[in-house]
Structure formats: structure tokens, C-alpha cells
């Protein structure tokens, strides 16, 4: 029951955070609202016995990625007049909801046809660092390795696109 209560709490927070992200005009507000979602998600991960992911969500997502985003938002020093004037934003969102509805309906229908399962916490170190790490370095070696390339590329990209202009060398 306690778990259900927590779930409800996190779920509501997550949805509200997401709604805030969509609705707030200023990206800063959106980002803050989004952080709430991320943190609630971390809680949900914990409820799902994903200990490592719970930690990572907080550290990597809510921590690293979001701080980066917030930093950039601040860095750009965005004035309200730089923001797009989104007249009829609510109408847009309403329209978007209508367009998205069939997709949601479809997914819900799928979920309904999936067997339901309990979400009691699993012991036995499920989702702990060690078993996940073992899995990661045994079965999932290839994606893990190639993610490194991905990050390398991303690094170069950040440098090349946003970095200071270099002298053109011929």
C-alpha cells in the first residue's frame, strides 16, 4: 500500500513536471519542472527495484544532463523578448494532444493486452551494481564499447559546433 502511495505520488509529480515542461514559456521554468519529473522517475525506478538505475537517474540525468542544460540556458542569457512569441500556445497544445491521442490510445491498448504483473520489491541484489555490471560487461559488451565512440563523436561535435572558431588550416 505504501508502495502504491509512493507510486501515485511520483506518478503525479512526474506528470505535473512533464506538463510544466510543456506549458512553461521560459525554458528555465521548463527545465526546473522537468527536473521534478526526472527525480520522480528516479523514485519510480527505485520502486521497480532498479537500484543502479535509480542512482544513475539522479546522478547522470537529474544531475549532469540537467545541470548542463540549465547552465546553457543561463549561459545564453535569454531575455524574455528572445523567446518565441507563441500566441495560441494552448490551442497548439490542445491540437497536439488530439493528434497524439491515437498513439496513446494504441499504446494503452497494447499495455492492456499485456499480462499484468506485480511490482513488489525484489531482493537478491536485483538491479544492484554488481549484477548489472556483470551483465553489462558480459552480454552487452558491444553496445557498451560503441557508446564510447558515440561519446567521442559527441565530444567532437560539441567542440566543433560550439567551440571557438579555429584558424582554418590549409
Amino acid at each position, binding site marked *: 500500500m505504501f508502495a502504491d502511495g509512493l507510486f501515485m505520488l511520483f506518478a503525479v509529480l512526474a506528470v505535473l513536471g512533464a506538463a510544466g515542461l510543456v506549458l512553461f514559456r521560459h525554458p528555465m521554468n521548463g527545465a526546473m519542472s522537468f527536473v521534478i519529473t526526472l527525480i520522480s522517475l528516479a523514485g519510480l525506478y527505485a520502486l521497480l527495484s532498479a537500484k543502479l538505475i535509480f542512482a544513475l537517474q539522479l546522478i547522470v540525468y537529474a544531475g549532469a544532463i540537467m545541470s548542463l542544460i540549465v547552465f546553457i540556458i543561463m549561459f545564453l542569457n535569454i531575455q524574455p523578448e528572445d523567446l518565441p512569441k507563441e500566441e495560441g500556445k494552448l490551442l497548439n497544445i490542445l491540437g497536439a494532444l488530439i493528434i497524439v491521442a491515437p498513439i496513446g490510445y*494504441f*499504446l494503452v*491498448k*497494447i*499495455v492492456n*493486452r*499485456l499480462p499484468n504483473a506485480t511490482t513488489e520489491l525484489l531482493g537478491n541484489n536485483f538491479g544492484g551494481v554488481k549484477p548489472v555490471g556483470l551483465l553489462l560487461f*558480459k*552480454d*552487452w*559488451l*558491444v*553496445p557498451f564499447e*560503441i*557508446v564510447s*565512440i*558515440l561519446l*567521442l*563523436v*559527441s565530444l*567532437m*561535435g560539441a567542440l*566543433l*559546433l560550439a567551440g571557438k*572558431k*579555429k584558424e*582554418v*588550416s*590549409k
Partner: protein
Amino acid sequence: MTNDLMLLLPLIIVGVGAIALMLASAYKIINNTSAALGSALVFAVAFLVQLSFCLKGNAVLFSDTFNGILVANTFSKGAGLVILACGLFTSLSSQTYFKQNDFCSPEYYSLTVFAASGMLLLTMTQELISAFVALEIMSLAIYILVGYNRKNVVAAEAVLKYLMLGAFAGAFLTMGTAFVYGQTGTTQFAKIGQYIAANGFTQSPAIIGGAFFILVAFLFKAAAFPFHAWVIDVYDGASMPITGYMATGLKTAIFAVFANFLVADAQLHAGWITFLFYVSVLTMFAGNLIAIGQYSLKRMLAASGIVHSGYLLIALVAVSTEAFSGAVIAYYLAAYAAGTLGIFSALSYLSGKDEKRVTFDDFKGLAKVRPYSAAAISIFLLSMAGIPPTAGFMGKFYIITSAIDAGQVTLAVLGIISSVISMWYYLRLIINMYFYEAEESFADTVPSSLASACTFALAFCVFAISLYPLAI
């Protein structure tokens, strides 16, 4: 065993080459030209290695080393060959391109090779999340390359559009993967196939939904209708060699993974035939209809790329899951790549500084001034239009044959009708080049260069590929 692992050699060469180039450029060891030649060398070596594997026969990478995540088969080898060739020609024509445009740095070539490593991974991967990561490697590298010209707002706009929509589609891919994982408990193609074979496709709702989202992501990258709209703008904003690279290498990789996923199980494939049928028809026609209204060559070629995706989708509809060799798809990709790369390498040296010549009208009378270039461009256009005896024709021929063989007569006929429609805009350029008087002398273009060498080599390829008999 080592013999089997050898099959990874091209991938390793490319990966190592990319990192080496990156480091070399970071430490300013190399200049642009040597970086270009270095990357070309990497591609060339990898290409030759891959070629030797292709010729050697049906050695398959054993499946349990990487938990079945990486597999090499004839299709992945063929597609890899095409990708490496694309990379080679892109590097070479870039070198010429940057004689007229000055936003280059050696990292450019490193990224080209990185992108190729992502593409090679995509062709070999047999697992969804690796596919996603590989896709992102490739995409990220390409995003950067698209936006490489930082001074150009158009390039920035292109990378915005591409990145935003690409990430959007990527999100669908992850969601789809999640659903597939939810149903089957695995993300490996082979095991998904086994699951479907055991439980039935229609009995697995999450696979329907998950596969749908995965397909959507692939279709987005392949620029299928209605996920095609970005292509035009992105190609337009990117620089010539990169546009060519995107149109060919990227498409090859995407269709490779697409096909590998789709043939995981016969039911899975069969379940999507109707869907793919409509998508491919709409893709072909939408692409054509966009292409006819274009003034810019790059936009036209982008739209024509959409049409070619439509043809490839026909091939996907028609593949046989029992004896999948992907030969038709690989052949078509090779044929298409030869034509498209050829055109873009020609444009690389003809478009002039800052790509000032990109519209149809800019090329009026080219044949009077640069007859051989005009002839080569005409050959590429005819190949893309599917006029014999070019590779494009044979590719189309194989696709239509496989479609009719698979009972998809309507699709074949629609494909043919679309290729009639496409004739107009290809011919339009030929008409502009040949049937008008030259308005300018093209004096500022680099007369003989790597790009022009590429162009003529590819023109030769267009015919050579057409003569290569394909075993379906």
C-alpha cells in the same frame, strides 16, 4: 576463430582510423589535404579488406562471441562494401570541395570515418539497442558534418532540423525497443524471431507496437513518407560531399539494419507488408511530387532520394525471409550510391565557391563548356532514372523482379509509374545542360581534381555495376 574475427577487420580499421585522424587533427599533425588522403586511405584499405571477404564466400561471424549482437553475413558485407566506397569517394571529393570552400578542418575527415564506423556497425548489428547506439554514432557524426560550416546560418538550420527530428525519431526507436523488450524479454533479432515464431505475431501486441515504432524510426532515417519532410531542407543546408554521403552511406546502413530486423521472422515481415506497401507507394509519389517543384539541384536530389527509398521499400516488401541474402537491396544501394555520389562529387567541383551554383538554371549550357562533366552527370541522372544500360536500371529491374516474384504486382506497377514521373526532373537537368547555350564559362571551377576523378570513376562504375550479374 581468428579467421572469423577477421571479418571485423574493416570495422576495426575504420574505427582505429577515425580515432587516429581525430588525434592527429587534435594535435595538428595533419593538414586538410593529408587528412583527406588519410581518410581516403583508411576507407580504401577497409574497402579492399571487405572486398576480399566478399569474394571469399560465405564466412559468417560466429554468433556467440558478442552475444549474437554482431553478425557478418553476405548482406552486411555487401552493404559494408557500399558504405566504404561511399566514404572513399566522399573523402576524395571533399578534398576538392574544400579547395573552393574554406570552413574545413582535419576533424571533418575524422568525423566522416566515424560516421562510417557507425554505418558499418549498423549493417552488422543484430540487436536493437546496439542498433540504436550505432545509429546515433552515425547520426551524430553526420549532424556535425551537416553543420560544419558554422558561418552559414543555413547549415545551422539544417543541423537543427536534422538533430531535432532525428532525436525525436530516436525516442520512438527507444520506446519501440522497450515494448519489444517488454514482450519478448530480449532485444536480439534472432531471439525476437524465435519468440514470434513460437507465439505468433498477432498474438504479441507489444511486438506490433514496438516494431511499429522501430520501423517509424528507420523510416524516418530512410526518409519515407510521412517522415520525409526534413530530408529536403537538410540536404539543402549541408555541403555537397556530405549531402552525397548522407544520401548514400547513411541510407545503405539504414536499409541494412531495417532489412536485418524485418527478416528476423517471416510473420514479422508478413505482418508489415501491407503497411510497408502503402508507405512505399506514398514515399515514391510524395518524393516525386516534391522533386518536380524544385529549383535547386540539391533539393531535387534530396527528393529523388525519397523516391529511391520508396523503391528500396518495395525491395523490403519483397524480400524472402527464408533465404534472405539482401542481394537486391545491396545491389540497388550500390547502383543508387554510384549515381548519387557521382552527381555530388561532380557538384563538389562544379558548384563553385560557397555553392553558388545549385539551381537548375545555373547549369544551363554546361555541356558546351564542360562536355565530359556534363556527360558524366547525365550518366548519373540516367542511372537514377533507371534507363538502361546503367546500374540504376538493373537495380530497378531486380527490385521489380523480386516484387513481382513475391506477388506484389501492384506495387511493382506503381513503382514503375513513379519512375516514369521521376523522369521529368532528371531530364530537366540534362535538358538544361545540353539544350541551352552556356551562360557562363565555369572558369572558377577546379579543372582536374580528385572530385572529377571520382566523378569519372563513378561514371565507369555505373556501367560496371550494371554488367555485374546478381544472384538473387
